[in-house]
Each structure stands twice: as structure tokens, then as C-alpha cells.
């Protein structure tokens, strides 16, 4: 091994060890032997060398806000990806008998008490005049007496008054009133009556933590799946933007001159195209075309289209067409600065080609900016996806996303506000923590930029 290292590799600037030995006769024979592991251990370092990432991580750890944001991101990711495995319902499963459940329920015993109370205070619990007379007669006979006609008439009149008043009451008494009278309180989580019966008989029933929607679908699972869709879309879009932006920006920055000028004019033009309109336009026009393609066969591509849905595909196309410009501008700016550095000149002098210089020397040196910009692309993609889903051109049913859940809940906002606010809060929390963590990441990776 040691012998091999003595001979220089082709293209290397390292001088040949044998030549040096020849020129300097006074050098000991083993001057250029590599150190043994023992020697290496004995060599005392003043300070442990810290890699770029370790250094960044150390700075990031000190940033409390970013760490809290990271914790929230991890919790949300677990919620989105592990949650649906824990909950026994699926996002499109319509559970019969548990439609439109709220966030809370009465226990099985309480429900029976409430029913009994309602029955007691409505028509069925009150005796009709004839029944009352019958009952009174039976009582009197048991006591060995007989009712006079006047007494019978009195009882009859009393009973009919009772019946009338209870009839009037019947309309007003509701479950909540009954519960109030009985002093019962709701317990958290939604259960349907059937599920409560099953639970009372000893079966284990998973609660509907956030209730169910009008079609009997568990809202919590739908929120989980929606979060999953949002995170996936965000990451995919960010990677797409990264790849296109990095390639375009580095070529434009490295080549310079006329190439750069033309490429920058294109960027400028794309920059001033209103993206939102183009996405809406794309989703309007690609939908029929993709649907036709979807029905044309049964290949892998068609299946992919079916899974993603035409709207998501048009969104990704729009990302690929329009959203990389910011990324490419940032990378170009960095590369314009970096390519003036000596090490690039050295690499060029040694005959490295443009592609190699970009890959090995320039891009690794602006990694901090690239990571930050890519990361901050995720919340903005999630933002956009939720926007599109909310206006109805996002993910297509039966798949759901946080934006489309909000949109569905809009019509019943006053009756079921939580159906809108739960996905909305999770969405906002996710974007907020991603933004905060992205800011922290930028401060950690690029301390020069810190304000």
C-alpha cells in the first residue's frame, strides 16, 4: 500500500517522492513513510476538527425557536405517516351509523338515562285520560273502594291537562336539555350509539377523536392523510425545484457571457408570469387530456396518473416550469462570486471540465444556500397546494388534503366549526414551524447572513 502511494497519480500535482529523496541525500530513509496507527494516536490534537455540518448543527441546537419548530415538524410527520397505521379506519371508509359525530359523546349509561328522561317528559311517559281512570279504578278496587263519577271526571280532566302540557313540552325537550337537567357532561371523542353498545359489551372500539363528517368518515384519519399529502407534495416540489434550479442556475452562472444573458432573459420573463394563473390554467386544460390518457390503457404511467390525480400533476408541471426561477437566481448569484476564486482557476488550469468544476467545486461551496432555499420551498409549496385544493383544483377525491377539507367544511361552518379549524390549525402550524426551522437553518448554515 505504502509503495503505491509513493508514485504520483496521473494529473496530480503531488511531487514524486522518489525524486525528492534523490535530490535531498540527507533525508532519512523513512521520511515519507505514512504514520502508523500508534503514531497517529500519540499525536495530540489541540481541538477536535469540526466538520461543516457538525458546526451548523451546534449552532442550530442553540436556537430554541428552531428546535421547537423541529420538534413540531417531527410530531406532525409522525402524526401523518404513523397515525393512519394506528387508527383502524381509512380515509375513504364510510362508517355506517356514525355520520356527523361531534368531538364529544355521552357515555352509554348517560345516553340511556337521557333517553329515559326524555321519554318520561314526553307523551309516551304520561298516561292518557282513559288510562289514568283505569289505573285509578284498579287502585280503588285494590283498596276495596269504588270511584264515584265525579271523582272519575276529575281524574280524567287532570290527566288530559297533563297530556296537553307534556305535548307542548315534547317539542322543546332535547338531548342537551335533558343532559343539563340530569347534570350529565359530555366526554371527549366521538362515538356513535352502536359503537357505545359494542364498547359496553366489552369490545374495544377506537374513538373518533375529531368526530366524523356527514358521510361517516373519520375526520382524524382524513386530517392525517391530508397532512401526509401536504408534506409529500411539499418535499417533491422542493426537490423538483432544486434539481431544475441548480442545473439552470449553475450553467447560467458558470458560462456567463451571451449564454448567461439569454438564460437570464428567460428567467426574467418567467419571473413576471403570474404563476397562480398558469397553474389554474394548466389544471383546467390538462385535466381532460390526462383523463383521456388515464382511460387509454393500464400501464404504469396511467396508474401513476390515477394515483396522483390530474390536478396534482398539473401542479407539479407548473412547479417544474415556473417555480425554479428563484432557486436558479440564488445559485447563479453564488456561482458568479465563487467562480472568481483561485481554486476554480487552479482546477481549470489542471484541465477540469466545466461540468466537473460545477459539481465538485462550485455547488458544494454554496450548499448552505441551496439547502436553505430548498427547505424554505417546502412550506411555500404546501401553502400553494392548500390554496389550490381550497379553490377546488387541488388533489382530487377520494384523496384528501388539508386545503380540500377546509373547503368541504366551509358550507357548514357555523354548525361544525371544528371541521374547518382542525385542518386549518394543523396546516398553519406546519407552515409556521417549517418557516421557523428554515430561518434557523439559514442562520446556522450561513452565519454571515444573520441579521
Amino acid at each position: 500500500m505504502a509503495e503505491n502511494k509513493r508514485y504520483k497519480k496521473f494529473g496530480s500535482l503531488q511531487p514524486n517522492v522518489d525524486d525528492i529523496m534523490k535530490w535531498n541525500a540527507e533525508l532519512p530513509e523513512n521520511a515519507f513513510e505514512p504514520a502508523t496507527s500508534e503514531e497517529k494516536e500519540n499525536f495530540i490534537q489541540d481541538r477536535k476538527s469540526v466538520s461543516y455540518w457538525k458546526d451548523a448543527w451546534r449552532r442550530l441546537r442553540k436556537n430554541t425557536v428552531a428546535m421547537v419548530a423541529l420538534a413540531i415538524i417531527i410530531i406532525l410527520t409522525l402524526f401523518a405517516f404513523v397515525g393512519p397505521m394506528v387508527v383502524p379506519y381509512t380515509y375513504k371508509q364510510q362508517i355506517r351509523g356514525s355520520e356527523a359525530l361531534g368531538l364529544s359523546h355521552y357515555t352509554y349509561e348517560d345516553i340511556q338515562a337521557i333517553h329515559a328522561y326524555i321519554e318520561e317528559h314526553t307523551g309516551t311517559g304520561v298516561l292518557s285520560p282513559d288510562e289514568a281512570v283505569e289505573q285509578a279504578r284498579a287502585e280503588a278496587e285494590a283498596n276495596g273502594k269504588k270511584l264515584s263519577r265525579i271523582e272519575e271526571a276529575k281524574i280524567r280532566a287532570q290527566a288530559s291537562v297533563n297530556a296537553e302540557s307534556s305535548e307542548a313540552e315534547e317539542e322543546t325537550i332535547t338531548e342537551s336539555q335533558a343532559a343539563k337537567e340530569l347534570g350529565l357532561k359530555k366526554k371527549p371523542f366521538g362515538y356513535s350509539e352502536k359503537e357505545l353498545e359494542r364498547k359496553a359489551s366489552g369490545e374495544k372500539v377506537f374513538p373518533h377523536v375529531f368526530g366524523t363528517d356527514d358521510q361517516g368518515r373519520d375526520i382524524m384519519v382524513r386530517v392525517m392523510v391530508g397532512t401526509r399529502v401536504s408534506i409529500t407534495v411539499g418535499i417533491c416540489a422542493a426537490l423538483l425545484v432544486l434539481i431544475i434550479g441548480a442545473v439552470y442556475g449553475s450553467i447560467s452562472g458558470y458560462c456567463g457571457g451571451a449564454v448567461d444573458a439569454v438564460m437570464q432573459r428567460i428567467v426574467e420573463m418567467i419571473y413576471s408570469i403570474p404563476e397562480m394563473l398558469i397553474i389554474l390554467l394548466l389544471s383546467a386544460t390538462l385535466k381532460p387530456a390526462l383523463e383521456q390518457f388515464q382511460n387509454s390503457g393500464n400501464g404504469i404511467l396511467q396508474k401513476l396518473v390515477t394515483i396522483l390525480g390530474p390536478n396534482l400533476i398539473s401542479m407539479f408541471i407548473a412547479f417544474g416550469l415556473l417555480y425554479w426561477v428563484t432557486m436558479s437566481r440564488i445559485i447563479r448569484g453564488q456561482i458568479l462570486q465563487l467562480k472568481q476564486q483561485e481554486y476554480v482557476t487552479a482546477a481549470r488550469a489542471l484541465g477540469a471540465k466545466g461540468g466537473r468544476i460545477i459539481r465538485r467545486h462550485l455547488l458544494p461551496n454554496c450548499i448552505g444556500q441551496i439547502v436553505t432555499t430548498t427547505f424554505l420551498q417546502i412550506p411555500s409549496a404546501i401553502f400553494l397546494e392548500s390554496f389550490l385544493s381550497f379553490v377546488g383544483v387541488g388533489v382530487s377525491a377520494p384523496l384528501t388534503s388539508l386545503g380540500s377539507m377546509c373547503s368541504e367544511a366551509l358550507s357548514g361552518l357555523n354548525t361544525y366549526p371544528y371541521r374547518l379549524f382542525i385542518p386549518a390549525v394543523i396546516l398553519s402550524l406546519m407552515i409556521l414551524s417549517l418557516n421557523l426551522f428554515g430561518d434557523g437553518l439559514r442562520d446556522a448554515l450561513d452565519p454571515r447572513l444573520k441579521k
Partner: protein
Amino acid sequence: MRKYTIRRIFMAVVTLLVVACLTFILMNAIPGNPWLSEKAPSQATIDALNAKYGLDQPVPVQMVKYLGNILHGDFGTSIKMQKNRAVLSIIMEMFPVSAKIGSIALLWAVLVGVPLGCLAAFKRGTWVDSLLRIVCTLGISMPGFVVATILLHTLCGGISGVKVFPALFDGSAKSYVLPCLALGFYPMCYLSRQTRTAMLDSINQEYIKTAKAKGLKNNKIIFKHALRNALIPVITYLGPQIAFTLCGGLVVERVFSIPGLGRYFIQSIQNRDYPVIMGTTIFLATFIIIMNLVVDLCYKLVDPRINLSNGGH
């Protein structure tokens, strides 16, 4: 300056042309033809219809014709939503509502956001700064529909007893309040953040120290010296914010059921009313591009130091 202006206008025209062509090509790529209905018409009928509407000509000819028509203000007619009504007249009816809400929203965003940003910069490190930072970070993290629905729910009768504003848009001054508030919230937070950064940059400059050393009052330093220079970068953010506000209007109009162009645009997409989609896209794109152009030119006017004639570098 003149060279820059000409170049910038030229770029805007090219962009517009690209958007228009893109729109036309996309619309042409839709499979099927407009004459398909339950009763399949005969080939002769289709040919006759194609000839009547010029659909038998090659696509480039059609495109040039369409673009020519647009220049004359002819955007075609609606085929589904309001049958046979000219698209331009629909746009002209709907757009003023959207524009009114958008401009009020942007106005309050600027009027509140910029001073708040200054305040945060001057009270840097105090609780005022922290509070404003929390609010603004929250504001740019909440999608427009979340803000809009929260406002709708809390102030329009969702909570019993609190019904300050009408839930349905009826054109009265009161019904404008919430949509504008919701629409302007994001730009307000965004602008205030940008102003804070720009202001911090500018108060660390030497000339501010000089002004302080000469004994100028704080107010004068802020408004006369620091703010003027801090506003320059803020202006650049206004261009994209105009586009954002206009597009954010889509959501707000849906939440508050406002009969604006944004809501109509979404409906036309859902109903596949292609002439309306095309017309609206081109109209809105033109508006946004012109607004961006105006903002860019203003930027140059406000700050003559920056030489933009060679691409801004």
C-alpha cells in the same frame, strides 16, 4: 433610464405574448371538439361549424387571429356560464369588484405594515419587536382562507351574540371590511417584515449616526432619513404583492361569496368554459405584468443610484 425603460417595456410585451400563446396552445391541446353533445352532429354539420368559426384553418393562423381579436378587445363569447355573452363584458362587470377589494387591502397593508416594520426596527430587542415578529410570522404562515374563515366565523354570527359584519356580501361598505382585512393581512405581515429588515440596514448607516450627532430629533431621523432609504427595497416587494393580492382574491371571494372576477374564474374552470378561462387568464396576466412594470419603473425613479440598464448587476 430611457434605455432601461424601453428594454423593460419590450420584455413585458414579450412576456404577455408568451402568456397569450401559451394560453392558446393549452386550450387547443384539450381533446375533443366544442360540438360534441348528446346528439352527435353529422360530419357535414361539424365541417360547416368549423368553417364558420374558423376552426378549419391551421393552428398558427387561428392563433394569430385570436391574438388580433384580443387587441381589438374581442375575447370571444362564453359557451357555458352565461351563454353567448361577450367575455369582455363579463370581465368588465366582475373586475371592478375584485380590484376595489384588492386595492383597499393593499392600501391598508402598506399603511399599517410599513409603520409597524419601522416600529419593530426601532424597538429592536424589546417585547414590541418580539410581539410583532410573532404576529408577522404567524401571518405569513396562515393561508388566506384560514384568516378569512376565522374572521367570518368570529365576527359574522358564528359565535352567538357577536355579529358585527354581514356574512353575505351585499356591496355595502360594512361588507367590504372583512374581505379587505383578510386579503390584506398576508401582505401587511410580509411588508412589515421586509420593512424591519430594510430599516435595520438603513439605521446602521453612517449618515444616520451623523444626523444623530448633529442633534436631530428621533422622529425626524426616522421619517426624513431612515425611512426614505428603507422604503426603496420595500417597493420591489409591492410588485409581487399586487399579483398575490389579486390571486389571493380567489380565495377571499369564495369564502365571502363576493361576485368578483376571481370567483368567476374558478367557476369557469370547474365548468370548463374555455373562452372565459382564456379571456380571464390573459386579462389578469396583462394586468399583473403591467403593474409589475409600473412598480419596476417607479423603483428606478425612486432610487437613481442603482444602474439597472445592464440587468441589475
